[in-house]
């Protein structure tokens, strides 16, 4: 139970002298509050596992400090840090019973037997492992094994945080859903700080109250799922979160107007002080663009296909060289394959060099 602070933390597998662009984890300063449910989201190779291993002590960072409740624990070994971690693939001590597996982290720390038994029984109950506690931990399904791994992560009540490194990769989708809900419930029940690494946005958005998006070794945004959806701080976040991702279009922005192909798109805020020479783009989620019949004054796009996702339809369109997805209202058809685009001004964001620009009211 602790607040975790990362202070100018960075890691390079090539040593500290390597150019900073090659760092697996670029300098980051941030705080994880006690009791939070965090998701660390990003594509493969973006440095999220590195960050996790740095926090747990498996990797010693090449730069910066980690503080647990203000105490610098950077030089401490994993054993001495008060942290639990669950790995991508289940790790089972297969000479032991399920119960002994759960008790292992406690036993190693010399917890009294009565406390161990109580704690193992509790975690066994929470994870529905009760009927197996006295069975050998072999001959179990992948999800049962991963539940044991999860249990070993959760069994210590005094940990600063429990880290999950894509723990549900090996689980079938149906069970994945159940286990994730279970984790969420456990988080409420046990009052532990949890950090959950994943490259699956659904997983991140359903599990966490705060999602930390990483891209190319950098933390690009951290916020609630709603914030990430409504106001992506970086074009990558817009593109990575949401399905389909945010439309990013190069545009000329002046005041309260954006110009694309000579067509004016209204903006809700005023952007007068955009940095000179920066690459200016506008970003808008497909949910907030509508395809309608072509009309004068509307940007015209060519429809390539319409994806029917059941409760919503998205038109995949082409705008010159750029691709754009837009909501297709019920009953919309296009005779000649062209359509007009109607933007919702309150959800059109402006990006300079990929970073969100806050306009003036």
């Amino acid at each position, binding site marked *: 139970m602790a607040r975790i602070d990362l202070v100018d933390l960075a890691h390079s597998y090539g040593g500290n002298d390597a150019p900073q662009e090659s760092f697996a984890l670029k300098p980051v300063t941030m705080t994880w509050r006690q009791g939070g449910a965090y998701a660390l989201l990003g594509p493969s190779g973006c440095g999220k596992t590195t960050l996790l291993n740095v926090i747990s*002590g498996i990797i010693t960072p090449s730069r910066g400090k980690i503080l647990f409740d203000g105490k610098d624990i950077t030089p401490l070994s*994993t054993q001495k840090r008060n942290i639990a971690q669950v790995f991508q*693939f289940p790790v089972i001590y297969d*000479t032991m019973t399920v119960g002994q597996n759960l008790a*292992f982290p406690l036993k190693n720390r010399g917890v009294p037997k009565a406390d161990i038994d109580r704690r193992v029984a509790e975690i066994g109950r929470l994870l529905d492992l009760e009927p197996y506690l006295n069975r050998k931990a072999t*001959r179990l399904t992948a999800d049962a094994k991963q539940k044991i791994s999860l249990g070993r992560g959760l069994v210590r009540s005094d940990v600063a945080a429990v880290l999950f490194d894509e723990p549900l990769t090996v689980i079938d989708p149906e069970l994945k859903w159940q286990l994730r809900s279970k984790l969420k*419930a456990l988080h409420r029940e046990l009052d532990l700080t949890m950090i959950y690494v994943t490259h699956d946005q659904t997983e991140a958005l359903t599990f966490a109250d705060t999602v930390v998006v990483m891209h190319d070794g950098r933390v690009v945004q951290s916020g609630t799922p709603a914030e990430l959806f409504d106001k992506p701080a970086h074009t990558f976040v817009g593109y990575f979160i949401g399905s389909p991702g945010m439309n990013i279009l190069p545009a000329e922005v002046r005041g309260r107007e954006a110009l694309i192909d000579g067509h004016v798109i209204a903006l809700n805020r005023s952007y007068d002080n955009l940095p000179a020479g920066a690459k200016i783009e506008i970003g808008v989620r497909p949910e907030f663009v509508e395809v309608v019949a072509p009309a004068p004054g509307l940007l015209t796009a060519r429809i390539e296909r319409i994806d029917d996702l059941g409760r919503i339809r998205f038109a995949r369109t082409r705008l010159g060289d750029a691709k754009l997805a837009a909501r297709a209202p019920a009953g919309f058809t296009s005779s000649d394959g062209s359509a007009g685009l109607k933007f919702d001004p309150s959800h059109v964001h402006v990006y300079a060099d990929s970073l969100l620009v806050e306009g003036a009211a």
Partner: protein
Amino acid sequence: MDKTVNQKAWFLVLPVFLVVAFSAVLPLMTVVNYSMQDTFGNNQFFWNGVGWFKELLDPSTDLGGRFLASLGRNLFFSLVILAIEVPLGIVVALSMPREGWTVAACLIILALPLLIPWNVVGTIWQIFGRPDIGLLGYVLNAIGIDYNYVSNEVDAWVTVIVMDVWHWTSLVALLCYAGLKSIPDAYYQAAQIDGASRWAVFKAIQLPKMNRVLLIAVLLRFMDSFMIYTEPFVVTGGGPGNSTTFVSIELVKIALGQFDLGKAAALSLVYNLIILIVCWIFYTVMTNAGVERKVQTESEPAAEPKPSAALKPVPALKPKEGVA
């Protein structure tokens, strides 16, 4: 599993069968033939039935006494070297580096003794241990230890055992190292997180993951040490007295020294049989271990006593929020 039954496939086995018949079965039959007869040279043979076998298993006779004594020595030798080489091999494997150029260096150094021919190993130790010119023997005597493997039985035994440990511990170590290398890093990381001590890591992870290769190592070392001939023959020649005369040395003495073909044939058949039986026991144990493993993977769903209970979340904990 539906397999096509085609008895013609037996013809494919025929060539191998013929080769084996000529190379193994026919020579073995001559041995069986000899074991039932007695000869006084001149190619004259007399029928002796199971006489040699009776004598062989009766300690009061000369043949039986010598056979059983050497068998006892041989078993003792095998047990001693297993008791030394297996733990030592594990320790060596555990202390080897896991990555870097030192891995290659260690592997080469470990492999060296295995590449030396048996009788060269014997010669090395025979000279090494000589009190007059051997480095080991001379140094031991110089510091006041009265060491002479030619005259002292204990010294002879120690020499033969140390020589075998030197020659073969590498094999156990290499096998164990291969077993250790196959353990994914995640296990060690998880153990670190779980706060496991070095000993707990060994007991909970490394030893269980090594048990297959250890079985193979024990099998190989047992068979090899049980059939040992060259090295002790070169170093001690079975002496002093008969103290290091193992079964194979005894066999050669009878067959080639005394030219008692009947006795030697009977002895080799029994010797062979013992090895076969031990082999079979090991094989059964090992395949049983394998079957158990296979059952684990194949019958996973069936192995769950209450699969549905395991999957359903406890009602009280059912998440309130729906699909996000």
